[in-house]
């Protein structure tokens, strides 16, 4: 892979001292630095909204890896967002137990309300809607996560309440 343009490569010199310390704590857990790659990807994603090329270059530098090393990991895992996602990432489970209890209706309802289909983001960048696989909420189906927060036993009315309660 060609090296990244210098300005992207050097865009992130470092994060705040607190975030840098958080990253150091993760690295310290392992005898091999590279093991900290997923925890650090989540941190970079949290700080920048998603994992962009500058984030990849930063992680490579931080862990003494090549940019390709980091890309190949980043592209494997579905929770690593390589494109921007909305401020609220609504992830509805599509797998069997949720489907049995009406997951499709939940997504239809959200789609109608937000005017986006699964895989899309609202023009104002507030919401992204996605189908995801089993969330471990099968006993409280249908279920979704917004960001990392779980919402379970969903009904269209409950979904409305949840969406109304989200901050601007």
């Amino acid at each position: 892979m060609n090296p990244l343009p210098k300005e992207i490569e050097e865009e992130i010199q470092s994060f705040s001292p607190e975030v840098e310390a958080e990253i150091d704590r993760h690295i310290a857990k392992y005898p091999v630095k590279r093991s900290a790659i997923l925890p650090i990807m989540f941190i970079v994603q949290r700080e920048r909204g998603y994992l962009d090329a500058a984030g990849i270059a930063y992680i490579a530098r931080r862990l003494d890896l090549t940019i390709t090393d980091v890309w190949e990991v980043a592209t494997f895992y579905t929770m690593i967002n390589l494109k921007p996602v909305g401020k609220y990432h609504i992830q509805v489970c599509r797998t069997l137990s949720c489907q049995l209890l009406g997951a499709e209706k939940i997504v239809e309802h959200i789609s109608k309300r937000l005017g986006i289909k699964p895989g899309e983001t609202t023009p104002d960048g507030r919401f992204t809607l996605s189908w995801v696989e089993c969330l471990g909420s099968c006993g409280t189906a249908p279920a979704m996560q917004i960001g990392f927060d779980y919402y379970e036993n969903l009904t269209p009315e409950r979904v409305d309440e949840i969406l109304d309660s989200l901050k601007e």
Partner: protein
Amino acid sequence: MRIEAIGCEPLLLARFNLENSRSLETYRRHGGYEALRKALTTMSPDDVINEVKKSALRGRGGAGFPTGTKWSFVPKDSPKPKYVVCNADESEPGTFKDRYLMERDPHMLIEGMLIAAYALGARTAYCYTRGEYKYLIDIMDQAIEEARAAGLVGERILGTDFSCEVYTHTGAGAYICGEETALLNSLEGLRGHPRMKPPFPAVAGLYGCPTVVNNVETLCAVPWIIMHGGDAYRSLGTEKSGGTKLWSVSGHVKYPGVYELPMGYDDMEKFIMEDCGGIPNGRKLKAVIPGGSSVYIMRAEDIIGKDVRMDYEGLVAAGSMVGSGGFIVMDDTVDIFESTKNLIEFYKHESCGWCTPCREGTDWLVKAFKRIARGEGRPEDAQLLLDLCDNIEGKSFCPLGDAAAWPIQSAIKRFPEDFKRHLLPLAEQERVPAVA
């Protein structure tokens, strides 16, 4: 959602309903970390392994491998560091028991990991948790800090020579990372592709060092076994399947939830119809997937009146498997073609792409299912689906390939009518209510 023990005293669920059940104080007030003390001060590592062997505890992650035997595979004379890795990736559709163990009683898991580390001579233990369970990682981190402050994690635990660090680790959305060798690659910071076995992780696992990977529920059973003895644990279940097991119940039952049953619980019909409240809305039972999405689907006729015993041997005799204990119940509104299509889409999405039979095979299966769902099914498609499965099963690099084939093979065999309906020319298809 219900969480309760039926047919036995709660063992894994013993502290679930206590106030602040996840705090160290509550845990210790109810005997927590006494098993660790007993192991460290009165037992040798081999004693611990023997006790676990006696208990007939079998891995609760899906494969059911005897835990004590697995532990005894770790070479004692290896100069390399050894590792204990807890598998909290819990991504098998229908399975959510580990989530509640960690949410309600994280110290039970930490104590189990520490006892395992002592038995194996490990000084480091990792808990690999699926990324979606971030809130559980936070709970575990907090519990580990509490334990560390109390001298239960870190250097010279309980004043003995035994030292061990416990760390959490996050996955990032990949079912395959539940497979133990893919998990180890992921923990090493690589793509989560499975590794060739042998060597097994017990010999060459994390960073090439001897490693034991165990499921959350497996490790949570260990403190009780050490406290009360392997024989006592075994006697709760059957000769070959000791102890109790958590079943994650979902789908069309009145009371879904996490149920702790003794191994060998008699019988599945009573469990569904009475313990779980039966099928809601006056519907009838049609099918059960008893052990997570990867196991054979069962027909109601093979359950009702059949005294199906709920343990490893009983479920095999009844034509399925315990697997992860993800118990999915379906009523007579469900079209098994549709439910099977849902699962194969899961496997296609989760195929890691490493080997051709699984990567291409699951893709073709989804294409065929989608075409049939569009009303373009042909009578010969049942055989086509079976041929596609045949090219995956037993020919893939890791068990995910088999896991993708089994639900389809068993569904076509056991619910031919639901498939036939879709394989007739469109005009002849009777309208069937779609799932949900």
